[in-house]
């Protein structure tokens, strides 16, 4: 049944506006999604905390103050200190930068890769077979050894090229991305295959729109929903994969705090100083949760059919 949302006369009295950027409509809808707004608020708070926080809380996260080691919350150290007397608040901020940046970039990279491959495979019949075999191959590669090998093989050249922090960052981000794009690719391909048969794509072809623009204008926006879902899951799993890599000694060096690393390091101290695991644990969960709710909201907002309701 076609959903006829009839247009009444009352609605016709709009003045003639030139077409406005559709992102405004997206934003209007997004605003009305309570969960998404809450998620947005939390996520922005987290971003502010990690990126702007250090301006407010000007403590060097690496500064060792042995006299005040293993302290609980106090005015001088709101989240307490670690075993070297480093300020946990500063470390959470600094570590959050890396974790959030890893999460976001790895997710973006994986997403771009997955989407690209998914669209290519779905849209161009010739590439479908080979690309899907490659995807299968990657799916069948055991990730952990692969990550290990990537890290051990390329850490040094990259560190040489970009400096230590940037090198490890690039490596970990790429390693996570390279091993996490396959699901997205599969889902996108499936959707593209279905979309390709939809009449509006045919319509675009009958107009003479070239394949490149069909895929960017008609296909991509319509596979947004599954991509959003992958994206939100992607951030979460990237942050967690990073911490698991830290756990296995393959992540960032210990002098680069990341939430996963801080959480891991705090494990042994859980009985004496639970704050050392609670803070990073809570921040990781909050980030993942907020991103997830934002994803829900975005998915709705990006869909004009829901937007209209």
């Amino acid at each position, binding site marked *: 049944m*076609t959903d*006829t949302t*009839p*247009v*009444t006369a009352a609605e016709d009295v709009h003045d003639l506006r030139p077409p406005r950027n559709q992102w405004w409509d997206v934003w209007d809808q997004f605003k009305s999604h309570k969960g998404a707004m809450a998620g947005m608020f939390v996520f922005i708070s987290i971003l502010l905390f990690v990126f702007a926080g250090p301006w407010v809380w000007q403590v060097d996260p690496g500064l060792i103050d042995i006299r005040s080691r293993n302290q609980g919350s106090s005015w001088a150290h709101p989240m307490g200190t670690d075993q070297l007397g480093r300020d946990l608040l500063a470390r959470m901020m600094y570590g959050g930068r890396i974790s959030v940046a890893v999460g976001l970039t790895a997710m973006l990279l994986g997403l771009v890769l997955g989407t690209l491959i998914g669209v290519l495979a779905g849209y161009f019949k010739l590439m479908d077979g080979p690309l899907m075999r490659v995807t299968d191959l990657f799916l069948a590669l055991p990730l952990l050894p692969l990550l290990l090998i990537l890290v051990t093989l390329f850490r040094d050249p990259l560190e040489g090229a970009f400096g230590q922090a940037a090198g490890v960052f690039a490596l970990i981000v790429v390693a996570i991305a390279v091993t996490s794009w396959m699901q997205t690719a599969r889902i996108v391909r499936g959707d593209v295959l279905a979309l390709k048969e939809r009449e509006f794509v045919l319509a675009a072809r009958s107009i003479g729109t070239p394949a490149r623009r069909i895929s960017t204008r008609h296909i991509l926006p319509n596979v947004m929903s599954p991509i959003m879902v992958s994206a939100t899951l992607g951030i979460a799993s990237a942050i967690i994969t990073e911490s698991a890599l830290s756990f296995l000694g393959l992540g960032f060096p210990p002098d680069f705090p990341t939430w996963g690393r801080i959480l891991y390091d705090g494990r042994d101290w859980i009985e004496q100083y639970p704050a050392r695991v609670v803070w990073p644990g809570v921040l990781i969960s909050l980030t993942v949760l907020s991103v997830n709710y934002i994803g829900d909201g975005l998915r709705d907002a990006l869909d004009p059919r829901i937007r209209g*309701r």
Partner: protein
Amino acid sequence: MPDGALPVLDVKNLKTVFHTRSGDIHAVNSVSFDLRPGELLGVVGESGSGKSVTMMSLIGLLPSPPAEVREGQVMLGDQDLLKIGEERLRAIRGRDVGFVFQDPMTSLNPVFTVGFQIMEPLRRHMGMDKKRARKRAVELLELVGIPDAERRLKDFPHQFSGGMRQRVMIAIALACDPKVLIADEPTTALDVTIQAQIIELVKDLREKLGMAIIWITHDLGVIAGIADRVMVMYGGQVAEHGPVREVFANPAHPYTRALLKTVPKLREPRAEKLRVIEGQPPMLGAHPAACPFRARCAHAFDRCARENPARRLIGKGHDVACHWDHRTGEPT
């Protein structure tokens, strides 16, 4: 059809509302009709006029929320279906009232065999054991004209063509010899040649089994071919209702009249230009205090905007809900 016979189904003043985020939708507004044994009532009306919702309200098939059947009375025999509660309703669905839906492609569960799906109501309502249910299922398939029924019981829906699937749906609906069969656009998704087959089948079955049928459709042609009485719905209300020949010959409601004119006729000379009904179907949002058709009505006058017309009798069993008198061309 003896006029005096007691109706099997008597619907009075049915109102159904959908509660949605953007307000209530009054999908069915004080709909009343009855159905006598052995009779075929055709229901027409444009998309969204509330045909399906009306029928599903009768036997509580609407999801609640968002749907709410507000008022009314649905007497099936001597019980009021709106009052007896979900448990008893379930015993009636499929047993006393059979339902056939529009889309045969999706209305059957793809992962169960056709046999299983036919036998399900038999075992539930008639308490048949597997063997007897099977036998009956074979009979039913043969009844709806599927050859090689015994073997085809084991097939899955996707192995049937659209027309055959619709036959299976009919077989399911007929399984427990219901008193009333409701067919919601059973042929809309089918080709004309297949549609003709199904119509032929239903006519046949009706003669054999003598059940009362409600047949919903867009297609006036189908109604003209098989119905005894016709009910034209518009905007959640009954616009016109009467014996089929009477309504087609003397349509009283402006909507019925317009509708009859818009459809080109195959067996009549071609008209130069098709007549159209301008405008769009109404929103069912607010509670109607006016005639829902007034915005598209050529004869609308001020009263139509103020008062929702009540159904008035204009002939034997023929009533219409309109302030305008088609015979005089004047307001009543």
